[in-house]
């Protein structure tokens, strides 16, 4: 089985990433065209175009080109589709947020910095952890657990409530980081105890509690504390991601079955206890019962979509600001209003491609830890996207989660970028195995004793 080594010369490396470059340039072209339309909308609202307004698109272009050049420079072998897809999503996000006035400040602000910084972090994480260097992350298993619980406790102790959710200092939402730390902990734990977790003794299929309890306790604590903060969306994302990781790591579909039972049971109890959740379910079932109250945001979003029709009014013609707080959770309604059904369908196809690619990378990662991490991240991003667009289109109740890469919100963007960087690093593969056949033989002979046994063949 001959595997291509890392390209040696710069010319080879330049050629090797030609597909990524081709895609990226097309994406940047589309975003540029979109930005021209968005700029053209300003004079209509009585605002003159300033030189500062060009900063956002320029830094956007530079960030993505920089990331690409960095990949070329180090001979990155990772997936070539992800960067372009992220560029497309972030580009649409940039356009929509520009329309919503996020970049309207007089001077250079934090808003201008978030997106380029996020892309920079993405590239740096990918390069720093490539070539199998992501695997030491598995050693920090208890660090991830402590970090996860610490973040929740910290937010619970110091956070302030705003629009039904709890925020940390200012408008930073530290709980976003859980999407990384909890996934990493679960990946490391399942990797270490895969065999024990996959061993279901007894005539009646039931999970091995002796092996499972640390993970179960962690999940119960984490999700319970999140529930206290009424972050139902995050509970759903993390809970489902954890179950999927368990199933992927042990090949036991039973985990999903028992997990579904627990989720339904817990969901029912939660709905009995929290009026917050009840209201959302009620307004989902019948938004017209209270159209100017609980149904207002969803119905305004849908009204905008209906007004947008098939092709959309185009950036600059529509009035997305009539939907309350559209720049964060309801950004998808803005896109659907301005770009129409076609535009939003294109966006969803792009998301679907991204999810498919993440799942593909997970399924092909060489190390089980890499597979579990990528699977966790793929699950988090897919579920988060589905929860958001499903809520906006009234397919499911509104859960109040952001749309990855598109919604306003530095914490969410940064975490998504780091996660994508991590998956890119995993997709770069392992260092070229020198004596592959021999090591696998040795590995098969020696009893698997967790991580130590696996590290030996690197």
């Amino acid at each position, binding site marked *: 089985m001959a595997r291509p080594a890392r390209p040696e010369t710069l010319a080879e490396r330049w050629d090797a990433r030609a597909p990524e470059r081709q895609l990226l340039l097309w994406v940047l072209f589309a975003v540029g065209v979109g930005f021209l339309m968005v700029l053209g909308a300003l004079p209509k609202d009585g605002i003159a175009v300033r030189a500062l307004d060009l900063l956002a698109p320029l830094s956007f272009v530079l960030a993505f080109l920089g990331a690409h050049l960095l990949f070329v420079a180090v001979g990155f072998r990772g997936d070539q589709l992800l960067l372009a897809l992220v560029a497309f999503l972030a580009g649409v996000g940039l356009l929509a947020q520009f329309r919503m006035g996020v970049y309207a400040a007089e001077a250079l602000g934090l808003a201008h910095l978030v997106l380029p910084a996020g892309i920079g972090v993405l590239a740096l994480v990918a390069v720093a952890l490539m070539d199998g260097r992501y695997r030491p992350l598995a050693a920090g298993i208890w660090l991830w657990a402590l970090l996860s619980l610490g973040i929740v406790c910290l937010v619970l102790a110091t956070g302030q409530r705003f629009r039904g959710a709890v925020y940390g200092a200012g408008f930073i939402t530290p709980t976003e980081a859980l999407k990384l730390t909890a996934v990493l902990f679960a990946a490391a734990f399942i990797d270490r105890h895969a065999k024990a977790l996959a061993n279901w003794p007894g005539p009646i299929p039931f999970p091995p509690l002796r092996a499972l309890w640390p993970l179960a306790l962690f999940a119960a604590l984490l999700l319970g504390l999140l529930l206290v903060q009424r972050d139902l969306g995050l509970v759903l994302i993390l809970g489902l991601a954890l179950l999927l990781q368990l199933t992927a790591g042990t090949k036991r579909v039973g985990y999903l079955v028992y997990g579904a039972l627990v989720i339904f049971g817990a969901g029912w109890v939660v709905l009995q206890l929290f009026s917050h959740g009840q209201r959302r379910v009620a307004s989902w079932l019948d938004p017209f019962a209270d159209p100017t109250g609980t149904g207002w945001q969803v119905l305004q979003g849908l009204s905008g979509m209906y*007004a947008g029709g098939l092709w959309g009014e185009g950036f600059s013609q529509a009035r997305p600001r009539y939907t309350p707080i559209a720049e964060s959770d309801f950004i998808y309604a803005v896109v659907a209003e301005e770009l129409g059904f076609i535009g939003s369908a*294109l966006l969803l196809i792009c998301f679907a491609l991204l999810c498919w690619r993440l799942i593909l990378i997970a399924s092909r990662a060489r190390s089980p830890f890499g597979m579990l991490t990528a699977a966790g991240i793929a699950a988090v991003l897919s579920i988060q996207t589905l929860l958001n667009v499903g809520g906006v289109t009234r397919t499911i109740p509104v859960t109040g989660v952001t749309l990855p890469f598109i919604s306003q919100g530095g914490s969410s963007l940064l975490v998504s970028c780091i996660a994508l960087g991590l998956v890119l690093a995993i997709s770069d593969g392992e260092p070229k195995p020198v004596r592959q056949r021999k090591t696998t033989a040795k590995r098969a002979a020696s009893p698997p004793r967790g991580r130590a046994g696996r590290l030996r063949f690197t």
Partner: protein
Amino acid sequence: MDLLNTLFQSTPWGPLRIGLHAVFLLAAAYVLKVALDLRSVMRLKHLAKPRAGFGIAAVLVLLGFGAVLVHQATWQLFGTTRPEFVAFMQLHDRRQFNPAHWIQRGRILDASGTLLAETRAVQTPQGLAAQRYYPFGPDFAHVVGYADPRFGTSGIEAAANVQLNGGKPESWQDWGELGRQLLAQTKRPKGHDVTLTLDAALQRLAMERLGEHAGAVVVLRPRDGALRVLASAPSFDPNQVDAEMFLRADPRARLLNRATAGLYAPGSSFKVVMAADALDRGFRGSIQCPADGWTTSGRYRKIRDHEYYEARRAGRTWRGHGRIGLDRALIESSNVFFAQLGVHLGHEAFRATTQRFLFNSRISIGEGDSRRQLMRTGRIPRIAASDRYGLAQASIGQGKVLATPAQMALIAAAVANDGIAPRPRLIASEAPSAVGRFMQQDTARRLRHSLRRAVAEGTGRSIETPGLAIAGKTGTAENPLGAPHSWFIGFAPADRPALALAVIVEHGGYGSAMAAPIARDLLVLAKARAHL
């Protein structure tokens, strides 16, 4: 910068912007195509073979996105199928370009194509807006209803809301039109017209003849239930719906559709029901009817015939009907006969009759796409077995018996239609059907004969018109609120009935005085309009 600012404010920017919009969508689509094309180039050869099971996850995610898109389309593209959503947008959406503000609702037409409602563009302080217009104002207010973003919809406007908004494509042509509107993003989406069975000329005459009186007129075709007139007075102007109408407790109850929901004592017109039941049960005998009346017990006031009172007022004495049969009793509208007949047949028979005639229920007269339009039939509570006087009162359409004008018209239609009651229907495209058999065919034939004689030589002789052959029964319903209600139910021509009707004028006095002449005028016009 100045260059950009000038460009954005220049005239070519308009078309240029639309071009950019198209380029953006095309470029986005092209990116996705290239991404799919480059799959083979971007194979991750240095990674392992795909593990099993992940494909299912990918398919599930794709299905999730598909479901979201489909559900989104039902709102974004086919929002007109949701009347509540359209109403919400018309009321609460400030986006002037939202097509919901511009839906050119379909017209509502009568059977011969007379316009009953249409949408017009009017100039308002906020700019041009679509407004519903009803050329005949109050005349059709109850049956056609109103459509107002603030106060919702009623009548046919409510029942056929989706079709009127254009949200119910019925043919390939309709689908094509909907597709064209979607593609072109037309700013004035057109709905579909709704044709009713009503006859505008008849309905307007009915309203005119009711005039200042409160009352109702129902005219329908016995053969298939097509409603020609469904009039209720007093009415309101659907062109000027305001909050005042709904807030104030209106002593005249203008919002009430008396034709389908007004509960009245039917008086003597109810004798048709009793006669039908007696004939169905094989009653062929005669009953002795004393001139000074009859009662079940000495404790109760005697039930007497109207001739007794007339004679007493004139200072004469009346000899009474003597022993008469059903036919004569119906022609002369004898209270004494029917009170005894009802008691003779008994409580159980009376209860079964009210059930067979569908009292205490609602019948759909307009199976709309969003809301059904219903008529009440009436209200007849169970009469206790010990209450014989109550049964005697009920048998002459007094006491606990209440019926709607639509129900009385339906009873007349059943007599005219060999005993089968047709389902009254308002929407022309609805298929005719029956709601049930009220009486045997033979009974209906005998009743047709008796009712013809009731007009020719009995209580209704004041409206006997050569060439019309009107058959019918008057009614004078005592009520605690004032003068008796004036009723007439009937059909014409008697030998092959083409129209059946019910007329009530509240506090109009004798049935022959107010209601019967209105019925005659309607039938005269109907004959002129070739309905008979």
